[in-house]
């Protein structure tokens, strides 16, 4: 059976998924650095090692995400919104609305049968993105992966009035000085982010089920706060970061199967997993 790979280069994290049939063979997540091309190679090599495969075992590779043009060994580039919809459909087929909270952006996607019906996106303002949570966690001296749980221990939500990340950071620091607890402030922060994201996503005709993906979905405090804005429990895939990469791999499989149905086999056009020079 053939292997297909998806590479998702996000603003903050790079993800690789290799599928065989409809099943995930292996997945890998690493931080995106300033040099996308070198990193794409390294993450792919690691994923292949993990799956005990060689580069030539891969039948088709699709790159996605904001750095997708920097994957010289990919056979095709597809936008992350399309790949997200595809990945979600295979993981949680009942989902009609996806909220993807990334490191530096946030998207709302309406899906029908694995296809994108409509989407909204914010990549212009840090409020409502992972960056906001990262900055606040930093200024409170709490690890980013702990803020969600801590926010759930709050005895009340300390409201945060600033929308802008820069102002919210200053507001948080002055509230700490007046004795507000970290848990209550974090509850306020998660509520503020959820309000901002909900305002964006509600521009779509939101229909259940609703899923949360991206790094933000790993934050239980944010998922609960978002749930309260939509008045229902939100679904989260087992590994919310790899939805786009999974979708990319599955898109590759579809493309390949369409060729195969016509009796063709798309050539890998001699692509190799090697360091590319920038203007090659």
């Amino acid at each position, binding site marked *: 059976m053939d292997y297909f790979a998806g590479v998702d280069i996000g603003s903050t994290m790079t993800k690789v998924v290799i599928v065989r049939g409809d099943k995930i063979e292996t997945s890998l997540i690493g931080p995106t650095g300033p040099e996308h091309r070198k990193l794409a190679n390294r993450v792919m090599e690691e994923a292949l090692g993990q799956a005990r495969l060689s580069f030539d075992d891969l039948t088709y590779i699709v790159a996605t995400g904001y750095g997708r043009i920097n994957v010289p060994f990919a056979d095709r580039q597809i936008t992350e919104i399309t790949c997200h919809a595809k990945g979600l459909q295979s993981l949680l087929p009942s989902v009609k609305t996806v909220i993807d909270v990334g490191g530096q952006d946030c998207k709302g996607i309406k899906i029908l049968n694995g296809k994108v019906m409509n989407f909204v996106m914010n990549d*212009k303002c840090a409020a409502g993105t992972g960056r906001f949570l990262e900055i606040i966690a930093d200024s409170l001296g709490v690890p980013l992966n702990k803020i969600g749980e801590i926010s759930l221990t709050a005895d009340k939500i300390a409201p945060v009035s600033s*929308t802008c990340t820069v102002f919210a950071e200053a507001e948080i620091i002055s509230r700490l000085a007046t004795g507000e607890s970290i848990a209550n402030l974090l509850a306020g922060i998660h509520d503020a982010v959820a309000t901002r994201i909900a305002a964006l996503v509600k521009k779509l005709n939101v229909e259940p089920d609703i899923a949360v993906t991206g790094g933000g979905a790993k934050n239980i405090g944010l998922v609960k706060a978002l749930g309260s804005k939509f008045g229902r429990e939100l679904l989260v895939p087992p590994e919310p970061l790899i939805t786009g990469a999974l979708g990319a791999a599955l898109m590759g499989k579809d493309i390949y199967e369409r060729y195969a149905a016509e009796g063709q086999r798309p050539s890998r056009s001699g692509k190799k997993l090697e360091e590319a020079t920038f203007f090659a």
Partner: protein
Amino acid sequence: MAFVLGIDVGSGYSKAVVLEDGVVRSYAVIPSGGDYRKAGAAAAKEALDRAGITRANVVRTFAAGYGGSMVDFADDTSTDISCHAIGVHHLFPSVKTVMDIGAQYSRAIRLDDAGRIANFIMNEKCAGGSGKFLQVAARILHMNVSDIGELSLKAQKPVEFTTGCAVFAESEAVSRISEGASPADILAGIHNAMASKIVTLAMRVGLAPDYAVTGGGAMDIGLVNSIGAELGTKPLVPAHPQTTAALGAALLAWEQTKK
């Protein structure tokens, strides 16, 4: 001889202006810090000291600004928007559009021919068009905010920022620096990003010449030039751009003493 005092307690700085028979005698600008009551009093004291008088010599005091209501010795208060309008109209009667760039807020004010406020808008939601953005820039480049303007004039090829968000621009600036962009090019890019936000804000109240830029942001020559480039004409800048609202407050106090 009658002295009046105008005080503007802003989020970043507190300003005071002393008028003698309607003419500016002295002024002061001090950081507001965390205590607006003290800041207002300290700014007033410094301006009075410079005029060589005490509060006892002042017949009327007007306070304005974010912390204006905390100035307990003021006879009256007014909004900083109306004081801005009065101050700018006094200095530049031809001005119809005022862009005020404060430490945390930026505002656009549209004046009619008589200098009355026709419309105004305030941006308090986003640091992108405020002095805070310049502080972020100064921090990344390890320099003083007051040196930004001069250095930015040496830019060869201003960096083009993809967003006006101060947080995203900070990451972008760091990436561009690592790729070899000069501090001057970074700063000029930040000025352009800010100017675009500020002029967009002003467009929402209706752009009409002449234009004035006030507030601490107006002390940054690079930012003023970027705003000028965006407008297609050079804006007017008061000699002491931080004190226009305090001047307006003082002028209001003076008007009342004449009645």
